[in-house]
């Protein structure tokens, strides 16, 4: 019995450590970034964070309440001399209650989530969006910009090849002046609409600060992802889908800059492109940026 007391004490201790740990999540956020989410840096991310906190409080509350009740039962109903167990097979009313309430909560949560999924994240990108093509390959990313005419042009997965990583439609003149970059350079506060394609295997487009993840699938042009960065700074794009021996280091730099800086960078890049009739479109090899 005394062994049992002490084991209880130990289990209690462990639990306390966790709750304390959870506490530190609040006390020690962001400064060290040891425990918690990196600060959000896009518009839609705010809503995702709200939803995460909502679920955190919901599940945290359920967790704490069920555990307290459970531990209370375990301690209170430990075997004691002369106290028999209650003989019961259950209670139908309770079954109905604890079926109905979770069902309602879960359906409500689905409504909330689904609303966000459609209305905020996967709504039509605004007309002034910057169009960027993203090509993934073993083991890197490349980005394509619309060039002087501001139009990325048509693209299709079936056109993707070594010479045409972004799958540009060879018959579409809009694509002739596109230029590419190995850094994802984007202006702050302007929607960015990306188009994803992969040359070989499935890769991932993951930026934790942007609260975004989308697989990049060979044979599919994925064109529904868009976001509006709200913070100037350097970020990293990580491939988050196992894609082979170089996966561990498949990443790209992202630079969110002011509108003015972006214009300057863009004009320089666009000028360097010499559209020649019949020439290959954007090639795989490219100059490393600065």
């Amino acid at each position, binding site marked *: 019995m005394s062994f049992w007391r002490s*084991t209880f004490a130990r*289990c209690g201790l*462990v639990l306390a450590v966790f709750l304390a740990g959870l506490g530190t999540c609040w006390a020690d956020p962001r400064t060290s970034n040891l425990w918690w*989410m990196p600060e959000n840096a896009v518009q839609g991310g705010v809503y995702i964070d709200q939803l995460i906190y909502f679920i955190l409080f919901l*599940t945290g509350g359920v967790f704490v309440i069920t555990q307290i009740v*459970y531990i209370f039962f*375990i301690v209170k109903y430990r075997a004691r001399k002369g106290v028999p167990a209650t003989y019961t097979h*259950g209670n139908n009313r309770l079954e109905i209650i604890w079926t109905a309430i979770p069902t309602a909560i879960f359906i409500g949560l689905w409504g909330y989530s689904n609303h966000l999924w459609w209305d905020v*994240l996967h709504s039509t990108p605004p007309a002034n969006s910057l169009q960027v093509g993203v090509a993934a390959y073993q083991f890197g990313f490349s980005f394509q910009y619309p060039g002087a005419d501001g139009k990325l042009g048509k693209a299709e997965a079936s056109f993707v090849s070594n010479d045409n990583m972004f799958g540009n439609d060879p018959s579409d003149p809009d694509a002739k002046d596109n230029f590419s970059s190995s850094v994802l350079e984007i202006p702050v506060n302007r929607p960015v609409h990306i188009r994803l394609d992969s040359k070989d295997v499935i890769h991932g487009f993951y930026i934790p600060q942007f609260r975004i993840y989308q697989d990049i699938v060979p044979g599919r042009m994925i064109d529904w992802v868009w976001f509006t960065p709200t913070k100037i700074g350097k970020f*990293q794009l990580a491939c988050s889908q196992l894609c082979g021996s170089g996966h561990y280091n498949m990443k790209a730099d992202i630079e969110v800059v002011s509108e003015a800086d972006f214009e300057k960078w863009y004009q320089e890049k666009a000028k360097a492109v010499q559209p020649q009739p019949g020439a290959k479109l954007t090639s795989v090899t490219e100059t490393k940026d600065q």
Partner: protein
Amino acid sequence: MSQTIAHSGPEAHAASAHHHELSFFHKYIWSEDHKTIAIQYLFASLFFLCIGGLLAMGVRYQLAFSGSPIPLIGTLLPKWLVTDAGAIQPQGYNGLVTMHATVMVFLVVMPLLVAVFGNFLIPLKIGAPDMAFPFFNALSFWLFFASGIILLSSFFVPTGFPAAGWTSYAPLSANGAYNGSQAGQSLWCVGIFVNGLASIAGAVNYITTIINMRAPGMKMFRLPLPVWALFITAILLLLAVPVLSAAAAMLFFDLNFGTSFFEANRYGQPLMWQHLFWFFGHPEVYILILPAMGLVSEMLAVFSRKPIFGYKAMVYAMAAIGVLGFIVWGHHMFVSGMNLMLSSAFSFSTMLIAVPSAIKTFNWLGTVWGGSIRFTTAMCFALAFVSMFVIGGLSGIYMASTPVDLFIHHTYFIVAQIHYVLFGGSLFGIFGAIYFWYPKMFGHMMNEFWGKVHFVLSFMFFNLTFFPMHNLGLNGMPRRIADPNLYDFLKSSQPLNIFVSLSAFGLGLSTIIFFVNFIYSMFKGPKAPRNPWNSTTLEWTLPSPPGHGNFPVTPTVYNGPYEYSVPGMDQDFLPQNQPAPETARVTVH
């Protein structure tokens, strides 16, 4: 429904068992006795547990100390795995992650739950002399064993382990030029295929046995919950596993014979692999947890000395999980590039499937309520199962919510969740069940003191290992990357990675206590009585271990499975095969 068929042969069979002595080969190698097969499965899958555990240690070593040579054995390891200095290299790391998960899922948890306890308990609990198809049963074990050898043999091929993840997403897995281990990946396909055959042979056996061979009076609603759980699991296996087997065969053809089921560059469909895999994969998740729920329910009832709270609700909840489990697979694919409308629909069905799990949890609380709880080692693991399962279930809600899944989909948050369900859930349930049924299996008791030491240490280290992984995931650490230090946004969380790894080593070491206890008790443990835990179900009416053919006389069943603390009785349990005494006030729910 209540029709039960008594097997005509058991008396004759049991009697004759004393006359013809089985040869060593038929007794231990190709045995057709379900109890021996269960024990063969037990030894094999515990062996694989050691291997899977060692692979996990390799994974955690790399994440904490990437680039440092592995002490002692580093330079002895093959070159696909380590550098010349003996440090794990990225491709080797991918192989470790892939095989850790493959081994744990297909060679450890699945066989431990379904094959060990399915084989051992089903005939004993329903009053049958053996399985319906003993030959298939023996075949199942050897197919399983072969699949383990095939999967692990990839260690010895020059390109090493398959390295495309246990989910083997195509086209990475479908082309040796992409994944760098054509031979390993091909062995994976063959291994998974053979493993599937073993599962199917087992499933057919369990379903037939449970339907046809129940003792007189053993109505379906008198079946102990482990049997119900295994019954539903077997149906899931029978419907889900062939899909994976077919997919593995197609993948094998893509890899070796130039077909193009999954490769986009040759007009295949990469997403088709994911649909096939997860059509199997989600029911698989429940295959890995339902039997543990059944085993835990029983231990909770026995050691609370109470009937299970809401027996029928438990059964209906499991059946609901079984049905819904087939229409939620798309929640693994919210970000896969499939149609966004499908994501909405799968998110909805996923929210629904959380309901039966909630029901089960509340009924477990109800079972403990008002009990007279005995804290045996088995009970400790069963109690811990409930808590850990609650954590895993609640963190699953994050992923069910599509927008949140965008953020955490392929991060360590998922790794944390998987382990809360599969380790804190399934494996804790299995540990408890081993402590509980060991006396019946081997005729000796396990040491309770060391059992509790094992429990306390693994409970502690388990949480210290896996809880912080939630935080790593929220921090943005992707799963399956060999070196988090290469990412700017992960540098700040490296101390947490080191902490997690040290805890993981503690967890690994604490399991040694279990193994020593397990082996030592087999020889030196005190002799087990027939019914050490004062249980009601049929297996405890037999000697420990039961003889060949099980029941000398086919038992007749008079009561539900969990008649504990019935008012008006002297003893606090009413065995299923004893009519209630006149004074007993048995109620039926």
